[in-house]
């Protein structure tokens, strides 16, 4: 399946992915209204150090430790996308303890978590971070060898 992958050497450290992510998941139609004077809680985060930068978001692992460890059943895999049912989530943060990539964060309420769902639950349709990246430092691609083989066989 298609996932968000990182081309580290192309990342400018501009953080636009964080803004597009927050906007896409805000449910607000104007980017200005979505972002102005609000805390930025993107589901993708840019790491920067010593001239290097790259954006990190959920890997949508095939063996997801967050889903397996979820104490409530709020995290599940739907068509390969790891999604959270915020209504079930109580914000215990066992998934934050489990995720090897550090890609799950508390949500605004503090009573649930928030994570990248590849924009499947918002109006964007496909990852807004990738669409908004000016330098293809993140791409939305199928690099899954076995899946590709399966599709080719079909």
């Amino acid at each position, binding site marked *: 399946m298609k*996932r968000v*992958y*990182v*081309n*580290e050497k192309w990342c400018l450290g501009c953080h636009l992915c964080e803004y597009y992510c927050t906007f896409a998941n805000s449910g607000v139609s104007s980017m200005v209204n979505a972002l102005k004077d609000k805390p930025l809680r993107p589901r993708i985060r840019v*790491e*920067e*150090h010593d001239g*290097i930068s*790259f954006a*990190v978001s959920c*890997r949508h*692992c*095939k*063996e997801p*430790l967050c889903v*397996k*460890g979820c*104490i*409530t*059943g709020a995290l599940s895999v739907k068509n390969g996308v790891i999604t959270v049912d915020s*209504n*079930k989530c*109580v*914000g*215990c*943060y*066992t*998934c*934050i*303890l*489990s*995720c*090897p*990539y*550090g890609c*799950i*964060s508390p949500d605004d309420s*503090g*009573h649930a978590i928030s994570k990248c769902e590849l924009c499947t639950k918002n109006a964007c349709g496909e990852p807004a971070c990738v669409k908004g990246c000016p330098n293809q430092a993140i791409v939305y691609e199928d*690099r*899954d*060898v076995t899946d590709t083989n399966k599709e080719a066989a079909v």
Partner: protein
Amino acid sequence: MSRFVIIGNSAAGIGCAEGIRTVDKDSEIIIISNEPHHTYSRPLISYLLCGMTDEQRMKYRPDSFYKDNNITAMLGCTVTAVDPAAHTVSLDSGEKIKYDKLMYACGSSPFVPPMKGLDTVKNKFTFMSLDDARALDKALSPDSRVLVIGAGLIGMKCVEGIADKVKSITVVDMADRVLPSVLDADGAKLVQSAVEKHGVKFLLGDSAKELFPDKAVLNSGAEVPFDILVVAVGVRPNISLLKDAGADCNRGILTDDTMKTSLDDVYAAGDCTESFDITVKNSRILALLPNAYMQGENAGINMAGVSRSYNKAIPMNAMGMFGYHMITAGTYEGDSFCESDGTDYKKLFFKDDRLMGYIMIGDVSRAGIYTSLIREQTPLSSIDFELIKHHPQLMAFEKTERSAKLSESH
């Protein structure tokens, strides 16, 4: 077609069923549980009491789970014996059920130590199951004075669950600090004072010498009046059925790394088993929901005929008290690095070029990156430890490793 019988309807049992179904969509699966409820999340009972969830939302899997996975759920049935030679389990109804492979996931039970005068106390509760939570909730009133014996994970979550429903709560523990199994002394102080702000009183390093119907007399001589008593001193693994059937056990049931017991075709997972803790290189009980699920899942995959090992068990825990969160993992051995500003607290433990364990309180962002260093036994000399010890981050890994993490499918 095989018949898989799973005793236990919680994390390990459900993990087992899901593990089987990743390999085998057709064989018969029967889940037997002595509780009459649809599978639910045990750790959510405290959230249930404080209204952060309800009985519908705390279901561990959707209502359609058994149907979707073609599982026969025999709920409210108690298994009375396992006969490994005949490959049968006996039920309290007298019925015998044959199995080809058996999963034993019977969890643990609250341990109630012998305490003088305990039998004179009318309103006494343990706090482990949905029925425990319902019974406690029914007994509570705004005038209740509650005594909780045990400041461990169960006792503390119980405190959080009932804090806004009762007049007063006193917590007594023999240990000199709260959450002694997961926190060090300094971290425990922070959590204790955060909980005290909610009116909870702690009497630590003390224990109940004698109980009376309406008060406890402690070893120190202090007296604690109460209307409701909650005993939360610990849990004991439920091993008796398999032990009686001849399975090798220490404190918990022993398994190999496929989760098979010493009995043919019998597997076990969850709180009733011991796990090989890679941080101390020893077999011990790791009564944690994620561990139970992953053991169960691994067992199910093996039961269905695919060989796979589960060999990355570590102690780990995430919990919050009134919005103040803590995440901990591993073993607190070796040199340490500590950062604290009085609210956010972090301590890392490292030895022999490995991260052994950590405690994060308050700011717990990206804690899982530390967990993965422990789980994968990553040599600290292969990463920028100076960088990562201040903030968990992928930047601390070598470029090729970063690329493997972020540019390949996982």
